[in-house]
């Protein structure tokens, strides 16, 4: 068992670690850390009022992911006081055992002599206990506050742990960019269907936000809108520096486009190579999704999108959005019979703390994402065939 204190720039961090613990011991050590933190507060008397907004439960399948998640959460500590449980599972171990590292990060607000504290509990759960995380998480939650579960890795084949986490969550956050393949979207959709009450957020959806914004800005409320019901070609390129052959981001964007403009995806069929066809009442939409090397972004992230629609008189209208040079820089080209325009936008960096923060402050139920996911499913299935 170890304990440490560090203090810098108005932040006090107290840590403790132990092995072979039960949840009651972990909870009592958290209380002790809080008492110690109260003793360190500038108010002297240590009137520790804890303000909490949420519980954050993080599932990590390895230490690196756990460390990265811890850093992301620490970045939120000052304005989203919470209790974070970061859980690393090692089911292959023989005996059930829980090891824990606890940290209380307390920020002092200048002039107020009051602390805002975040508690971070990193648990390593070994053996069969890893299959019963529910029994470990529930005792450690701050009562009656929303529970955000962040599943940081790919979705596992085995559904039990996932289902337990979903049942615990008010909001279940994944990053579909980390799924082993786009097929993970199918698993996610199945989970949504099996748990109608649950709300699901996807960090990958946040990465698409600038793309979606650009498309809405340029396509809706503009002259381009009148051509969009007749879109005939959709071309998407995504980064493939390490060999990615499909992109969850691309499927989600397609699902969102379908939802936005009323495309039917149920009859999607795979055509040659990377192409597929979406039969519509007014004619098929041809969809092409191609991988291509692109430095500075991760595999599966969008590189470019273009939509083409017939505009009458043998002419086309089109819009394309693409990264240009700097990965944070997007350029939009709109081509209409009446003329063309170009627009540039600088997107926000897609760092995890930023995307996580958006998940925390946004309404938990996101019907736009749910629709996009639902409509992406037939596309993923068609691409598998």
């Amino acid at each position, binding site marked *: 068992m170890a304990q440490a204190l560090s203090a810098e720039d108005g932040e006090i961090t107290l840590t403790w670690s132990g092995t072979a613990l039960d949840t009651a011991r972990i909870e009592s050590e958290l209380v002790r850390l809080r008492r110690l933190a109260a003793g360190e507060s500038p108010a002297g008397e*240590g009137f520790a*009022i*804890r303000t909490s*907004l949420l519980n954050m439960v993080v599932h990590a399948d390895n230490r690196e992911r756990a460390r990265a998640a811890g850093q992301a959460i620490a970045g939120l500590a000052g304005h989203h006081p919470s209790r974070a449980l970061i859980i690393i599972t090692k089911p292959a171990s023989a005996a059930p055992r829980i090891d824990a590292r606890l940290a209380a990060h307390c920020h002092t607000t200048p002039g107020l002599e009051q602390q805002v504290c975040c508690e971070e509990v990193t648990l390593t759960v070994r053996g069969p*206990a890893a299959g019963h995380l529910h029994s470990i998480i529930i*005792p450690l939650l701050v009562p009656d506050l929303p529970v955000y579960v962040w599943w940081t890795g790919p979705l596992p084949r085995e559904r039990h742990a996932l289902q337990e986490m979903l049942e615990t969550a008010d909001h279940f956050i994944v990053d579909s960019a980390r799924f082993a393949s786009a097929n993970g979207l199918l698993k996610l959709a199945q989970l949504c269907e099996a748990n109608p009450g649950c709300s699901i957020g996807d960090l990958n959806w946040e990465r698409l936000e600038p793309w979606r914004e650009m498309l809405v800005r340029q396509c809706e409320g503009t002259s381009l809108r009148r051509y969009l019901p007749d879109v005939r070609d959709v071309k998407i390129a995504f980064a493939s520096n390490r060999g990615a052959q499909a992109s969850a981001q691309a499927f989600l964007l397609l699902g969102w486009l379908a939802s936005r403009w009323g495309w039917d995806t149920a009859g999607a069929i795979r055509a040659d190579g990377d192409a597929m066809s979406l039969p519509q009442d007014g004619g098929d939409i041809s969809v092409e999704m191609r991988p291509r090397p692109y430095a500075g972004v991760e595999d599966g992230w969008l590189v470019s999108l273009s939509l083409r629609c017939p505009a009458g008189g043998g002419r086309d209208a089109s819009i394309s959005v693409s990264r240009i040079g700097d990965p944070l820089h997007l350029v939009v080209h709109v081509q209409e019979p009446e003329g063309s325009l170009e627009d540039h936008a600088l997107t926000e960096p897609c760092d995890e703390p930023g995307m996580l923060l958006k998940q925390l402050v946004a309404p938990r*139920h996101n019907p736009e994402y749910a629709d996009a996911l639902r409509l992406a499913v037939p596309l993923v299935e068609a691409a598998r065939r």
Partner: protein
Amino acid sequence: MSAGTPLSASGGPSAAAAEEALEPCAMVIFGASGDLTHRMLLPALYNLALDRRLPPRFAVVGFARSDWTDDEFRRRARQSVQQFSRRPVDDAVWESFANSLFFVSGEYHQPQAHARLAALLKKVEKERGTGGNHLYYLALPPTTFPLIIGGLQKTGGIGRDHQRDGWARVIVEKPFGADLESARELNRQVHNAFREDDVYRIDHYLGKETVQNILVFRFANGIFEPIWNRRYVDHVQITVAESIGVGQRGSYYDATGALRDIVQNHMLQLLSLVAMEPPIAFNGRAVRNEKVKVLHAVRHLAGEEVDAATARGQYARGWISGQEVPGYREEDNVSPHSATETFVALRLFVDSWRWADVPFYLRTGKRLPKRSTEIAVQFKRAPHLLFRDIADVSAMEPNFLTIRIQPNEGISIKFLTKVPGSPVRIRPANMDFIYGASFLVQAPSAYETLILDALRGDATLFTRADEVEAAWSIMAGVLERWQSAPPPAFPDYEAGTWGPAGADALVERDGREWRRL
């Protein structure tokens, strides 16, 4: 509790000096070799000694069947203190405390044993000057009470027919009966020897700091009492959740069940403290009068009403804190076909001007996911949902005021707040007052508080005979219905879950849900 009793005392000279002097006395513990004495009573007495809060010339006389000497009792007492005291043993204090410990070995029904006890008490009185004041602690099952009381009447100068120097008080441990009839009989037996004013029925919940703090919270603050009524309160939830199973108490528990073990005493005590009217004074009579009024106002359930307003359950094998745990019927000394309930949920109404139509939901159970005892008051929603069109309605949760009894004693308030930035987004936030972290002192144990009160002659935190009978009378209809109706298909909840489906259905029928703990 008398005036001047610190509600959060760390002991020490200043605290002790501020209190009125206690009269010298001898405390007799019947059942001195038992678990309660070992785990609770001796460590509590030692901590009182450490804080110099015991009466001068105080003596403890242990009485039990074990064939121990004074020295053996002292040796074992030291072990108890080393194992269970909240503070380490101080050798000097221990030596002085140990010199005040004595032991009488004997059967509870044997007149010779009682004669030996009387002789020892006389000797102690002479040597230490305890003035004939005796506090008897019955740390034994109620079946032994007639034997002990009979012995005291014959040899101890106790009872209406005796004139005695000094006072004689008795502390009685729960259970105070198994139903209304047995509680009345038990009261009758105790009253054969002791006046009601000298009877201290101990419910250790009432000795907890946070339980006492309910009274302070409600009646010392001006801001809560005006909204503490049916106009503002939607409902109240009282939860006593345990993650442990029955442990070594299998045979006792299997004959008792959760309703008798927890609801009839601890939970109804909490209910009465939450629902009581302000007493006219902070003394035993005034406070207990108001608590009894609440119990008399609780609507009794009978027949089919019981089915609609209660749920019972029994735990099956499951997982808690990452460990697989056995089902109730697999526990030691429990029948493999047991129909005893390990979970109870019920809805009660207090038919009073203040609480008419406000449901009080009570739930208790073993092998629930976590240990937690709390009272949660849910307030009615704002009458007009001003932000319903622009904010996430699912996040617009009702206000809760929660008093946590254990663990992490404290009070929290949940309210809605705007997330910084635009547009308007609303989130619930918890502002949490943590008792231990705020005062940075160690509170005395419940037994320290209660023993000290009994030594002082203050019965505020003890249960009166009419309270006990009123509480059993509330349970009578439920017990009758459960005994007559076929038991549910037990076991019906997995260890590590929040109880049977019937418990959820109970509150969902009213359009409500259990608080997530």
